[in-house]
């Protein structure tokens, strides 16, 4: 008689999964979600050579597998050398993206790195222009 509860559990799991799939809808316009206050945040590590070097280490550890060792992007993931990332997007925008992620598009949150490491990796990305 244990098979019925097991089947119930699996069915419930599938229902939960389906209902949550709505959260995975694409959001290509993540920039429009960034609050003005976040956009204007200043990078406390800006123009620090050590921060760029540290950011490169963090980038290679966590980001290079999707965005490429040289940040040129891969088949499914965007280049970080594009004009949009290098000129249009502010440090604050990138910080917001790294904290919140864009889960529907496969970009996880990196809040676990902590603010200092997030700012450091932004220093590195912005140094690639």
């Amino acid at each position: 008689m244990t098979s019925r509860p097991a089947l119930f559990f699996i069915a419930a799991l599938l229902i939960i999964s389906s209902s949550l799939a709505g959260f995975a809808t694409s959001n290509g316009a993540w920039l429009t979600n960034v609050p003005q206050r976040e956009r204007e945040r200043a990078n406390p590590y800006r123009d620090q050579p050590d921060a760029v070097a540290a950011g490169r280490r963090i980038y290679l550890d966590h980001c290079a597998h999707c965005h490429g060792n040289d940040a040129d992007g891969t088949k499914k993931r965007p280049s970080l050398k594009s004009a949009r990332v290098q000129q249009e997007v502010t440090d604050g925008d990138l910080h917001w993206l790294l904290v919140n992620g864009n889960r529907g598009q496969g970009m996880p949150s990196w809040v676990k790195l902590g603010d200092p490491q997030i700012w450091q990796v932004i220093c590195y990305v912005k140094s690639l222009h």
Partner: protein
Amino acid sequence: MERRMNRPVGCLAPEFGIQPGVSVDRPGILTCFVRTVLARTGYAALLLVGVVLPSYLESRGQEYPYFVTYSQEMEEPGNLDIEMFNVVGNPQGGNSFIGSDIEFEYGLKGWWTTEFYLDGQATQNQSTIFTGFRWENRFRPLPREHWINPVFYAEFEDTSADKTIREVVGHDGRYDFLVPNGLAHMDKERELELKLILGSNLRGWNISENFIAEKNLAGDPWEFGYAFGVSRPLQLAARAHECVFCPEKFQAGIEMYGGLGDTDGFGLHLTSQYLGPTVNWTTPNGMTVALSPQFGLNGYSIPVLYRFSVSYEFQQFFSHFHRSGQ
């Protein structure tokens, strides 16, 4: 007159098959466990662990040092984390044991992580046994970061004589560990476990709380438990140069967990409770090692549990196969 057999007894010898008054030489618990694992999994496991996996190793880190508590963090989509958890304990009036499980955690989506566990244990003077499997799924309903981030967790487990102590619920206590493996292994436990995971990141600190409800599908009442963890890297900013023992490679914290009774009697009465410091270290090649002594807070608990784990994470695991096929 004591009779003595000088030949060692195998790890799988039944605990009830020895005549009274016969003393036997038994291998140590770790030797026994390793010998049995090797015998049962053969060289394929050695090949996998020793040759194949290191070739895929990618540097990574920033895992929280928790053994029981779940944080709000999900596995990154496409990443596979393989982790070996171990716990060593010596319940009063019983035999020392080591409970182990190997975990395969995969990020299916940014909001969905699935994990599969294989569990086993070895008990001194008894046996080494495979105790079952568990399959769990975690769902994160809110796409962005908030002050408190909820995650829903659902698990199905099919175990018997489990000693991995990955959670404590109901009236779980040290007396459960006094039952001989031969008897405990006959008691199959098919259970549904639900958790509400709440996690926050604040100025480098991670604070995680779990509320657990577990039900044996054979009809026992719902059992409840909790887990709480707080941790922080020893240093938040990274250094410019690669280092092995620099502070940002370490995370330290405290973990506390225990039972909260069941639907017949909710509360702390006749429950076991544990508290202990925990620390992990990420090596330059991406392996994370974690250690924690956890102390029983009342007479219903095992006095001390020693936990340790080793984990590797393979980033974009299946992309390796795509590339090799091109």
